[in-house]
């Protein structure tokens, strides 16, 4: 018998597989296809104070080993979420994380205050959405801002606060340390890499937003390196993601230092991806006589 359970600080998950923000909606579509209590958790679509329509289409561009998106945080707003989506999400039987993105510094704490009164299991601060022009991108690449935003949120809530880091920085571990200093309970990484795809016939960017966030298998080597780097520099738990398509990929992140993983783009290609990964992970652990999946976290034998 394999124990797939993991802890992220105080928070317990029945397995380490979390659906990543923006690739799973609020679970309503996916619950048709499998029992969402099979997975470890769901991070909601990124939420803002006010409802947002997001960017113009095209919002997706394909590339060799992944895709770029420029959704631009389309969402119904935090209040609608709390009233109409969260209760249903909490019924799925897995951990529920609210992913929030602020336009202004204060908005993070304002949203956290609202969430503090709910039964949401954790709050993930998206400090790094590359698709909002006057937005949170700036927060994510400035260590002092990361620290300050994290502190401001920690002041208003006792919920576990995860800080989601952007890979578009010179030193991701510096950003992770800032989150830790600010009191973050965990860091999650990576968000998307800023990229561009051009249609050579029209000589236009495929995305109406010109640039967008690159995700999928093509970003995995960068993500694994960053997770390992951050794992080696902070003391708080690390949640790893970026290009996980199957159980082997998920295990790679755990070995690199992740105590749990998030699966994003894979859901868009294989709707049952998270479920499939949990099943194959258990099989792998059984075959490899790993009794506690959590024992893999950070077991990388660096040369």
């Amino acid at each position, binding site marked *: 018998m394999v124990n797939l359970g993991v802890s992220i600080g105080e928070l317990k998950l029945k397995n380490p597989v979390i659906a990543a923000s*923006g*690739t*799973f*909606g609020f679970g309503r*579509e*996916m619950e*048709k*296809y*499998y*029992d969402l209590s099979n997975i470890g958790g769901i991070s909601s*679509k990124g939420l803002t104070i006010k409802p947002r*329509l*997001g960017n113009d*289409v*095209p*919002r*997706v*561009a*394909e*590339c*060799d*080993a*992944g*895709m770029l*998106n420029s*959704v631009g945080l*389309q969402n119904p707003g935090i209040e609608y979420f709390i009233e109409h989506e969260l209760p249903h999400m909490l019924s799925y039987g897995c951990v529920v994380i609210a992913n929030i993105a602020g336009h202004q510094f204060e908005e993070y704490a304002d949203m956290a205050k609202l969430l503090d009164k709910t039964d949401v299991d954790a709050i993930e601060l998206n400090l790094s959405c590359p698709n909002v022009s006057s937005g949170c991108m700036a927060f994510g690449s400035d260590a002092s801002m990361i620290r300050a935003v994290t502190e401001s949120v920690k002041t208003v809530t006792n919920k576990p606060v995860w800080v989601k880091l952007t890979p578009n920085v010179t030193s991701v571990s510096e950003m992770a340390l800032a989150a830790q200093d600010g009191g973050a309970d965990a860091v999650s990484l990576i968000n998307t890499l800023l990229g561009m795809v051009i249609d050579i016939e029209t000589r236009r960017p495929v995305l109406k937003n010109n640039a967008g966030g690159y995700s*999928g298998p093509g970003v995995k080597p960068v993500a694994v390196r960053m997770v390992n780097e951050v794992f080696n520099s902070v003391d708080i738990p690390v949640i790893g993601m970026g290009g996980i398509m199957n159980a082997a990929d998920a295990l790679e992140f755990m070995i690199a230092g992740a105590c749990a993983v998030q699966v994003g*783009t894979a*859901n*868009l*290609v*294989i*709707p*049952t991806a998270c479920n499939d990964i949990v099943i194959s992970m258990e099989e792998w652990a059984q075959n490899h006589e790993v009794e506690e999946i959590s024992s893999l976290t950070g077991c990388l034998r660096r040369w």
Partner: protein
Amino acid sequence: MPQQIEFRCQIVKRQQPNASFVILTFASPEIASLAMPGQFVNISADKFLRRPIGIMSVDREQGLFSVGIRIQGEGTLNLSVLQPGHYVSLLGPLGHGFKLDNYDRVITVGGGTGVFPLFFVQQYCQEHGIEGIAVCGYRSAAESILTEEFTKTACAVSFASDAGDMTIAGHAGHALAGVIADLIEKKADLSRTLIAACGPKIMMRTAAEQAAAAGISCQVSLEERMACGVGVCLVCVCKTKGSDGEIENSRCCADGPVFDAEAVVW
């Protein structure tokens, strides 16, 4: 009970009516039995993302369904060379199709690859005793497609070509104008008539305007670049008018691809 969404389906037949198009027939009792006209499948095409393709027809008895594909880029090219026997992963049936059940008469107006999903509409009308009239616009007779099938299946057809070498010279709108004028002349009751359009945006918009002018209901099938096809990623949105007239984003994949023409913000 969770619903199966991904199927590995075998290709049982491949037809290539001309250099630009192939018709692939897949074995899938599930999709064949569930699919409704206007729905689509999201097919693996040896590229990172799947490709959304409308369902062209179903054979519910034999558990088969077909899709018509225009070779456009790499993904559709990859699909077009697949031979019978090959298995392909696909998601389906996806989206909301045409709502046909309140109508006595359905005029399909198609252009380009839009004629494929509309053939399924005609098939459905035939099976359900709805009067089907098929209007198709082509570039030229040489590039026309499914004309025989439409002729066999629909109660009436009207084919137009830009090149002027088919019944009507001009685009689908010209043919549709003729069909509507005919019906009005015949004093047909148009209150339970539907125009179902699928094709280039400009064609659908014209059809919608013609429908509105004639007081006919109209549904259109929109196309947007997709990723998931199931409604979770929000990349495929189109602007629509909500019941209160406010502009909203609808997901082409999950809320559509078929919308009431009146709700569409062109």
